[in-house]
């Protein structure tokens, strides 16, 4: 328990928590003690000595940043002697600094410059003559940043930021004495382990480390700084966009929840696509086979005629719509409202089907609510973290850094269960390398150990759950030895992992698509829930079942009802009371029949049962499994309309393409993976005639003769709040500064940090016994390798945005296949050479990456690259419950190209 104590600084009485950092306390209370090496997010070094103060009873001066507050502490922060010391120290720093503030990019945003000014150290009053320093040349080798030693004050904030916040340790000091500099890797950024996250840029107080930008970008006072939400993944990092003349010139992390200033390379350097010349700026209408520019009126007239013809001729269920996990909550809500109320069908879905449909289905069945149970920040304090099927370092980089911090600084034990040797393995106490697609087996095995060794939380099972006896019967059969046969995980290791997970004070389970994208996806998710409940690891801080959602707003798109069986807030279309409520609110007759899912829509299109398709910002031509089939399906449609910001692979096949505004050109909200609704602000104007999707949807409604009129996105959110209990208290005005986590049922509700505290959303937690079922397609003589697909750090989804960002392409700009070096040698494949990967559905040619990251007999292909599209290969076999395809396992052959 923290204890409040009282201290005095320069006669000002302050009440604070015992042990707080004195410098931070002073600054928080408006006492601006100078200091350059201190930063609240990294450890204290006490190197610059600028923050020295007098503390009564201590014999010598003390750097405030190294002092912890104790009761009755009396501090003098400013007197003549202290000030003259500080002057001298700054003077010394300036004597070694390349003081060309006149032409320095950081002028106006530089802590050193501010101090020089504050202490009046102009050329006449400085006492130390500039010393000649022999310094190496600036390191300009990184694609995203530059380091200039002549501007470096050796405060070490970058070194500690890279090591402590990011867990990468790329930076260090080199040489010594006057020649000391900061270096990356073996003296060069380009070949170092740096992945371009920019944390060092964020923390550098001067211009020594800066973003690599065109020459002389506008300076701090020339730009508007606008906080918004990053659109590159489900973490929902808050970023500050610096804008001048309708252009985003720089991006910094905003020092607030959930990322506190951190980002990954995509958030900081990946938004240059916004102003690319090939943005869509006018509607396009297909005339004589080619897409040609048209006016909005023309385009809407064609849409109206063609869609209504299909609806009137064949019925509303021959139309379908794909909403988008990239669009805002407001847009997803409106989209499903439009499909349901004005088209009259529940055929609305989006690509969550391909990533977390099984999460929504599984967790809803077990707990009553299908989302991350706990919050991102809690991970840092969990005593055990089990990560499975998530290459967190690449897919949710900011969350991965929290996991590393939990291990390095808070004594957490990390268990990684993954067929690939992912980065987190380095931090793991135990790594279980299961055979792809055998997840139910190892989880049952862990539960078997937990039960047989008496490690289960019996009172939790008794009081909070149901169905335990059935679970027990199934789990009893999965002895570690049997599980070893199925999964190849050594029985002893499985036992070790089970003990760690079950006995830690708090255990948090984190998973992602390695769990969900299987024909047994729902079973896998149910197993994670079983595991958490059997050990009582749910309903408390730093525990829980935590699916990391991939796309920026995939949580929100699900929450707002862009799913075929539920309205917003998971209210079932089949429930008559719900149906009546929405019929009244929307003034339309609604269908109680659940609609088609993504893959079913494609199948129906191929069979001619779905004739018209409306796609908002999705790109199934790269994202969906078995692309050859998707292509056939889309070509078989009578009418396809796509709204997007670029002419995507899917838009190329459309009859009408509509230009949409990007996330930086519209207002609204995204819901991140921890259920936090975060504001999106309009940062720049959309190019040409592009308009936000919510306005496009209103135009659609109008074409269908249904009235939809909103002044702005906030008004749409108010309607959502009225109709959606879990969003009941969410309004734009309440989202500053930290957003709100649902459930937030009323205007005075503070939001919910973790779910299922005293009671599960469904009452009792339900155990679901599940048996192991092998993947739909296993290696055989003809197709002897296991193929798995996934994401990488530098790109996002189908690459429409990320592959137009130079910084990201500088790191990776082509697809590849990871193959174990032994397999490569056996097949005569050279690292960096070409290879053909073939499955029963298709073939791609790509580059070989020989690496021990994959196990022998396995191949991994990232799916972002259309020219080597992994989804030409993947299997569209479906999980029967959630209809999610098995993107993680297929049988393939490989051969030298």
């Amino acid at each position, binding site marked *: 328990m923290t204890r409040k104590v009282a201290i005095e600084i320069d006669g000002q009485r302050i009440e604070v928590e015992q042990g707080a950092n004195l410098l931070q306390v002073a600054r928080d209370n408006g006492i601006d003690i100078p200091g350059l090496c201190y930063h609240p997010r990294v450890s204290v070094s006490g190197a610059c000595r600028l923050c020295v103060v007098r503390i009564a009873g201590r014999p010598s001066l003390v750097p405030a940043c190294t002092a912890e507050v104790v009761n009755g502490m009396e501090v003098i922060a400013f007197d003549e002697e202290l000030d003259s010391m500080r002057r001298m120290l700054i003077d010394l720093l300036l004597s070694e600094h390349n003081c060309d503030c006149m032409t320095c990019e950081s002028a106006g945003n530089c802590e050193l410059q501010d101090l020089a000014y504050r202490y009046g150290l102009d050329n006449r009053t400085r006492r130390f003559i500039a010393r000649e320093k022999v310094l190496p040349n600036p390191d300009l080798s990184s694609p995203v940043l530059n380091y200039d030693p002549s501007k470096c004050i050796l405060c070490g904030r970058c070194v500690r930021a890279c090591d402590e916040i990011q867990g*990468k*340790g*790329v930076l*260090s*000091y*080199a040489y010594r004495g006057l020649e000391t500099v900061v*270096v*990356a890797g*073996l003296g060069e950024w380009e070949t170092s*382990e740096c992945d371009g996250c920019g944390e060092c840029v964020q923390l550098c107080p001067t211009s020594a480390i800066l973003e690599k930008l065109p020459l002389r970008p506008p300076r701090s006072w020339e730009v508007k700084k606008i906080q918004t939400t990053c659109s590159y993944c489900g973490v929902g990092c808050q970023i500050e966009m610096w804008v001048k003349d309708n252009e985003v010139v720089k991006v910094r992390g905003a020092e607030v929840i959930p990322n506190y200033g951190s980002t990954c390379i995509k958030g900081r350097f990946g938004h240059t696509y916004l102003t690319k010349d090939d943005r869509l700026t006018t509607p396009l209408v297909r005339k004589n086979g080619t897409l040609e520019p048209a006016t909005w009126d023309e385009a809407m007239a064609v849409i109206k005629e063609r869609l209504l013809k299909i609806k009137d001729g064949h019925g509303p269920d021959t139309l379908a719509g794909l909403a988008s996990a990239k669009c805002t909550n407001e847009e997803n809500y409106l989209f499903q409202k439009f499909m349901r109320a004005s088209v009259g069908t529940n055929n609305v879905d989006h690509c969550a089907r391909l990533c977390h449909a099984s999460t929504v289905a599984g967790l809803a069945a077990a707990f009553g609510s299908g989302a991350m149970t706990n919050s991102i920040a809690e991970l840092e304090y969990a005593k055990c973290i089990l990560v499975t099927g998530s290459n967190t370092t690449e897919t949710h980089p900011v969350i991965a850094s929290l996991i590393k911090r939990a291990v390095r600084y808070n004594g957490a034990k990390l268990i990684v269960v993954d067929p690939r040797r992912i980065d987190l393995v380095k931090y793991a106490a135990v790594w279980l390398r299961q055979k792809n697609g055998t997840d139910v087996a190892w989880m049952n095995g862990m539960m078997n150990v937990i039960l047989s060794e008496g490690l289960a939380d019996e009172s939790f099972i008794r009081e909070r759950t149901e169905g335990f006896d059935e679970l027990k019967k199934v789990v009893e059969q999965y002895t570690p030895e049997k599980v070893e046969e199925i999964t190849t995980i050594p029985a002893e290791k499985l036992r070790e992992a089970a003990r760690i997970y079950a006995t830690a004070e708090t255990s948090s389970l984190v998973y992602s698509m390695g769990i969900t994208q299987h024909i047994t996806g729902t079973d896998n998710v149910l197993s994670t829930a079983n595991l958490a409940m059997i050990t009582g690891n749910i309903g408390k801080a730093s525990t829980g079942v935590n699916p990391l959602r991939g796309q920026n707003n995939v949580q929100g798109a699900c929450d707002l009802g862009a799913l075929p069986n539920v309205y917003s807030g998971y209210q079932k279309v089949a429930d008559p009371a719900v149906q009546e409520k929405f019929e009244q609110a929307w003034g339309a007759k609604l269908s109680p029949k659940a609609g088609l899912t993504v893959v079913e829509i494609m199948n129906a299109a191929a069979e001619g049962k779905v004739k018209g398709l409306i796609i908002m910002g999705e790109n199934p031509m790269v994202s969906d499994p078995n692309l050859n089939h998707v292509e056939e399906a889309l070509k078989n449609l009578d009418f396809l309309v796509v709204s997007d910001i670029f002419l995507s692979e899917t838009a190329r096949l459309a009859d009408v393409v509509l230009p949409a505004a990007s996330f930086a050109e519209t207002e609204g909200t995204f819901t991140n993976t921890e259920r936090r609704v975060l504001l999106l602000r309009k940062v720049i104007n959309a190019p040409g005639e592009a308009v936000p999707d919510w306005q496009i949807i209103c135009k659609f409604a109008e074409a269908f003769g249904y009235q939809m009129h909103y002044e702005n996105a906030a008004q749409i959110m108010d309607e959502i709040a009225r109709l959606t209990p879990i969003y009941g208290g969410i309004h734009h005005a309440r989202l500053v500064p930290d957003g709100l986590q649902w459930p937030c049922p009323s205007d005075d509700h503070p939001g919910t940090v973790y779910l299922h505290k005293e009671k599960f959303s469904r009452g009792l937690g339900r155990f679901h016994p599940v048996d192991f079922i092998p993947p739909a397609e296993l290696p055989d003589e003809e197709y002897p390798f296991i193929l798995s697909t996934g994401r990488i750090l530098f790109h996002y989804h189908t690459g429409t945005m990320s592959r137009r960002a130079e910084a990201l392409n500088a790191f990776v700009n082509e697809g590849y296949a990871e193959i174990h070096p032994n397999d490569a040698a056996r097949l005569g494949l050279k690292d960096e050479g070409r290879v053909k990967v073939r499955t029963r559905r298709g073939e791609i040619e790509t580059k070989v990456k020989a690496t021990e990251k994959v196990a022998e007999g396995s191949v991994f292909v990232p799916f972002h690259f259309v020219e080597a599209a992994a989804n030409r290969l993947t299997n569209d076999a479906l999980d029967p419950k959630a209809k999610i395809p098995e993107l993680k396992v297929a049988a393939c052959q490989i051969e030298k190209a």
Partner: protein
Amino acid sequence: MVEKRTSQLAELIEPYAGRPQELIQVLREIQEELGYLPKEAQEEVAQTLGVPLSRVYGVITFYHFFRTSPVGQHTIRLCLGTACYVRGAAQVLQTLQEELGINPGETTVDYKFSLERVACFGCCALSPVMVVDNTVHSRVTPAKAREILSTYQGS
């Protein structure tokens, strides 16, 4: 040849696997064996001990003892201690750098000379002092340094 060195390296480094605190020790052993620390050795050390590359680089550049290029046929050690410095060692260094086209710690492309700086040989009476292999040259001036270098031409 390359392969031989790789296996030799692995043998040297392996005992220190996962022991970052032994970084200096292992670097010293490799340098003893190979005469310098090739880049691949630095990388291998970082990986096997589990330390970032930059820490290896930091240590290597901090101690003048470590070299990152192979030693030449002849090693020139120039003293830059106080006495030698006062008597013009800096100008001698300048001359050597110009003549050889290398900085201290480096080796000429033809592997003939390596250049190193030393703090004090303990024979300040002879300053400035320059030692080539085991031969001590005293009272060295830029001109004398050039002359000494020329005696090694062709050898």
